[in-house]
Structures are given as structure tokens and as C-alpha cells.
């Protein structure tokens, strides 16, 4: 029987001709990427005395940059000492840092046909590159750092066939929110994205969709490989790669067509994602206290350009604050070169260094009791960005920027 993309990667990494749904397979990983948070002492995770292969491990600072508290500063020191002691070759501390999933992409660790291990739950982001990647947790990463191997259950797969092109004013974020609204959760299921519509989705769009697939509780989320993947990776790929394709006779639980041209700007309502999505036109006018553009879902240069286009010559509403956090130092450099930062600052936004920051309520943009935040970050669980008595709504960077100007949820298409 045919295999899906992810099955093929698992077969290669477990040294077997075939893997079938329901099996548990043991796999060698190609790359292991660790981030800062598990080194914080409050995480209480032991530090490895020896590692599997220091040339195949990357350590990226993101959640805690720059250190928001003494506890976290101590944790960063533990991480630095670990990198030095083990001779970790690919180390991205403050100043060379970024949200790990974005740095993974920029530095060419996520490769077509590859198996990338990372502890963070939004590791599905790297699926944009035809790579098998999913969140594994800090403890599993400890094992992988030591041994270079892990296990997976081979899960059934849902295939999304994308057709057509997004209309003007509709963004990749709206596409994945649409999927969440219509189809809800994908518990213990892989998803893959393919079809003729892919040619209208650039790499950043795929990263957004792959990242947010975690919020559908999907296991692996993997995109088909094409020329755009190839050209993005040119000059970046850390090693030669071989793309994988799902076989024609691979078995899918369901094959669903998404007509990109029929999607509208979408808002995720507070506290959870699946089946909790409304059209922006239904929610327009709802007052907001904070707007946030950033995170591994939507903090890339493509997102900042859209925000700048909307914010140029306008002002953030006096009853609202707008925080913009680039996904990586590289993104910040591009934003500076393109003059975007000036536009943001003139509009009255706060432009921060790259970090996870407000996304996980770590620092730089927490929300207080009774406040409402509209964000382009990944997660709207109660208490995620600060007070448990706050509300978090999610939308595309365009919707967030437009809403920051009006101080209330706004359809960005009305401002073009």
C-alpha cells in the first residue's frame, strides 16, 4: 500500500521499507533543536553531561530574550554553559536569536524529507518545508539530545487540497482559521496540504498555516514540496535533501478541498480555536485594549509589510496599544532596511526586539484583568497572555493593524 509523506520519512528514519497506521516506530532524527525555556531551573530538567552529536544540535534563544526575570536570567546562563561545554555548533543567543521556528527556517534546518526534533509545541511550523516536525516536549528532547532518537505513533492523515487564490484582503491566517472553524479538531491525525492553490501561497503563508495546525491538535502538518520551497532553501539548506511525496494510493481518512477564493477574514473568539471562529464582519466594533502582531505564526517580514501598509500615515487609537514583535533578528533587520519600523513608531506602536514575548505571556505585553487583546499570535487559551480574566481574540496581522487604529475589531478591507 502507498504511504503518505510523513510515513515515508518515518520509514527512512526507522530503517524500514514500510510503516503503517497504528504502529509505534522508533526513529533516528536528522536535526535536534532546543530552545531556552527548558534550561530555566524552574523547569527542573537535568542538563545532559554528554550529547548524541553536537554538530546536529541547534540551541536557539527565544522565549526569554532579553531575560525578563532573575530566574530566567539564571536559566539562560545554564543554557550558555551547556552550549559551551558540549561544543554545540549551531548556537543562536541574544542578538543572533529569534523564535526558534523562524530561525530553523532561516538557517535551513527544516529540510524536505527530513525529520526535525524540537520540544516546542509549534514545531509543526517546519512542516512548511516538507519536513516531518512536531512538538515533543522538554523531557523527550532531553532523551533526543542524549541519544538522537525518538518514537512516533503512525497516525492517520487528512489531506487538504487547496484550490484557487485568496481574494484581496484575505490572508493565510484566515485560511487556517477557516479550516479550524469548519473542521474543528484533528486529534491524533496528521494533516497535509497540497493542490494547485499552493502556488499562490508563499513560504511565509505555509509557515503560518503549518504553525497554526498545532491549534487544531494535529500531529504532523506537512506541505508538499515545490519550486518555492526549493528557491527558499537555496543557499540556506544545511545539507542536501530529498523531498517526499504522498503516493497516489496512500490512504487518507478524508480528502478535503479548500477553495481559497471563497474565504473571508476570520476572527477566533476567546479561549479556544476549533469551531470557535467568526467572520470579521460579525465581530466588527468589539472594543480592544491591546493589539499584538508577532509570534512564530505571524511575525515575519511579510506580516510586518502588511501591517505597515495599513498603519502608514495613521495612528493607533488612543484607547488601544499596539505591540509589534518581529519573529527573528533577521526579520527585524529587514524591517529596519525597508523603513517599516519608522512607520510603526510614527503610528504610535511599540516595536520590540524579537522574542516570544507577549505570545506566551512571558514579557513585553501582558494583558490585565478585564482587558481584551486581538492578536496574530498562536494561542488564545484563558490566561495565555496574562490575566486569566482577560479575553484573547485572534486574527491576521492586517485585521490586527486595522483594529489597532480603530480601537475595535475592524475589517481591514474598509481601510484600503
Amino acid at each position, binding site marked *: 500500500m502507498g504511504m503518505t509523506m510523513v510515513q515515508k520519512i518515518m520509514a527512512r528514519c526507522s530503517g524500514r521499507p514500510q510503516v503503517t497506521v497504528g504502529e509505534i516506530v522508533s526513529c533516528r532524527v536528522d536535526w535536534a533543536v532546543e530552545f531556552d525555556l527548558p534550561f530555566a531551573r*524552574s523547569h527542573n530538567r537535568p542538563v545532559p553531561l554528554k550529547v548524541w552529536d553536537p554538530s546536529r544540535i541547534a540551541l536557539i534563544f527565544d522565549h526569554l530574550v532579553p531575560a525578563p526575570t532573575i530566574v*530566567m536570567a539564571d536559566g539562560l546562563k545554564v543554557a550558555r554553559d551547556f552550549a559551551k561545554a558540549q561544543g554545540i555548533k549551531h548556537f543562536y543567543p541574544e542578538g543572533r536569536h529569534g523564535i526558534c521556528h523562524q530561525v530553523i527556517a532561516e538557517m535551513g534546518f527544516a529540510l524536505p524529507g527530513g525529520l526535525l526534533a524540537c520540544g516546542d509545541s509549534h514545531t509543526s511550523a517546519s512542516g512548511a518545508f516538507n519536513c516531518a516536525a512536531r512538538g515533543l516536549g522538554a523531557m523527550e528532547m532531553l532523551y533526543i539530545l542524549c541519544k538522537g532518537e525518538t518514537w512516533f505513533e503512525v497516525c492517520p492523515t487528512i489531506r487538504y487540497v487547496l484550490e484557487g487564490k485568496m481574494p484581496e484582503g484575505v490572508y493565510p491566517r484566515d485560511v487556517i482559521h477557516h479550516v479550524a472553524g469548519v473542521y474543528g479538531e484533528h486529534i491524533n491525525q496528521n494533516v497535509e496540504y497540497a493542490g494547485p492553490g499552493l502556488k499562490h501561497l508563499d513560504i511565509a503563508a505555509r509557515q503560518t498555516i503549518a504553525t497554526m495546525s498545532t491549534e487544531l*491538535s494535529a500531529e504532523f502538518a506537512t506541505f508538499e514540496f515545490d519550486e518555492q520551497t526549493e528557491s527558499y532553501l537555496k543557499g540556506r539548506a544545511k545539507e542536501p535533501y530529498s523531498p517526499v511525496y504522498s503516493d497516489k494510493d496512500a490512504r487518507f481518512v478524508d480528502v478535503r478541498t479548500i477553495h481559497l477564493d471563497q474565504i473571508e477574514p476570520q476572527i477566533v473568539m476567546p479561549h479556544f480555536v476549533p469551531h470557535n471562529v467568526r467572520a470579521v464582519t460579525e465581530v466588527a466594533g468589539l472594543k480592544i485594549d491591546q493589539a499584538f502582531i508577532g509570534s512564530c505564526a505571524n511575525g515575519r517580514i511579510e506580516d510586518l509589510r502588511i501591517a505597515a501598509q495599513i498603519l502608514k500615515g495613521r495612528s493607533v487609537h488612543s484607547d488601544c496599544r499596539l505591540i509589534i514583535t518581529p519573529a527573528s533578528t533577521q526579520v527585524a533587520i529587514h524591517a529596519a532596511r525597508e523603513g517599516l519600523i519608522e512607520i510603526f513608531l510614527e503610528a504610535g506602536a511599540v516595536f520590540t526586539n524579537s522574542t516570544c514575548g507577549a505570545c506566551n505571556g512571558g514579557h513585553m505585553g501582558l494583558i490585565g484583568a478585564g482587558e481584551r487583546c486581538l492578536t496574530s499570535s498562536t494561542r488564545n487559551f484563558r490566561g495565555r497572555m496574562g490575566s486569566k480574566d482577560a479575553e484573547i481574540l485572534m486574527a491576521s496581522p492586517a485585521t490586527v493593524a486595522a483594529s489597532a487604529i480603530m480601537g475595535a475589531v475592524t475589517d481591514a478591507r474598509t481601510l484600503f
Partner: protein
Amino acid sequence: MTMRGRVWKFGDNINTDLIMPNVAYEYPPQEQPKFVFSANRPGWSAEVKKGDVLIGGSNFGTGSSRPAAKQLLGLGLAALVAESINGLFLRNCVNYGLPAFSCPGVSALFDEGDTAVIDYVEQAIANEKDNRTLSGSRLPPSLVKLTLSGGIVPLLRQEGFIQ
């Protein structure tokens, strides 16, 4: 291995940020468990007793990679059985040594306060008051063994990878 414990019931989509709110990171590990469910069930973490059992709804543990399973262990919970358990969370349960398995129909088997009898190796659960029994099935014997031996840390320590 059979366990017997008082049942606490929770609904669907209990996420990691409810189990372990971000603020817990600012406290030493032994104090972190007291923040469990402080947003959705304040005061609960003080009521839980060692050996109690958590019965969850569907997609239990959805969300982040944070060490939320460890917080449940820290409260003394003996086991978690849910309609379905999020894949990443289940992995964390194994890795920290918390016996957990998915078991469709388990919510209807219990009222809160009932006593559950659990055979983790067989992945079976019964209600002591009426002996109704269900079995789940998601974990192979190797992972059951890893869980029962306390998860990853004792294993790596034994092999000299960590102190």
C-alpha cells in the same frame, strides 16, 4: 499493577495552560503544582489527595509542551484516564512517569467522588461501586514500562547521561 483512587472529573479540551499557567515558571518546582487549574477550578489543587485519579474528557492536555504532566504528578495524582489524550501530552505523561491512557466512554462511567480501580498494564478502568469496566488502548508495553519506571530521568541517569 492495580491502583485505586478517588475520582475527580474534568471536561473536554482541558489545556496545558490551565494545568500549568505561565506564572508557575516563576516558582520553584515544588511550589508549581499549586497553580494547577487555578483559572478554571480555583482551590482544587489544595483538595487533591495522594492517589486520587483524574478523569478527563476529549483532547485532554491540548496545547503547549510545558511540563504540565509533571504538575499533576506533583499533586499526587495516581493516574489520568480521559476520553482522548492529546498526543504531545500523552508523551509527556510517559516521560514524567504519570500513568495515563485514553479510554472512550470513561466520563460516563463515573460521578465525581466515585472510586476508580485501574489496571494500568492492561489499560482497564472500573467503577468500584458497580463494577462497570472499560478498556483503553494506546500504549505499547515498552512505554507502559518506561512510565512505571519513573519516565526518562531515571533511565538516562542509569545510563550516565545525566547526574
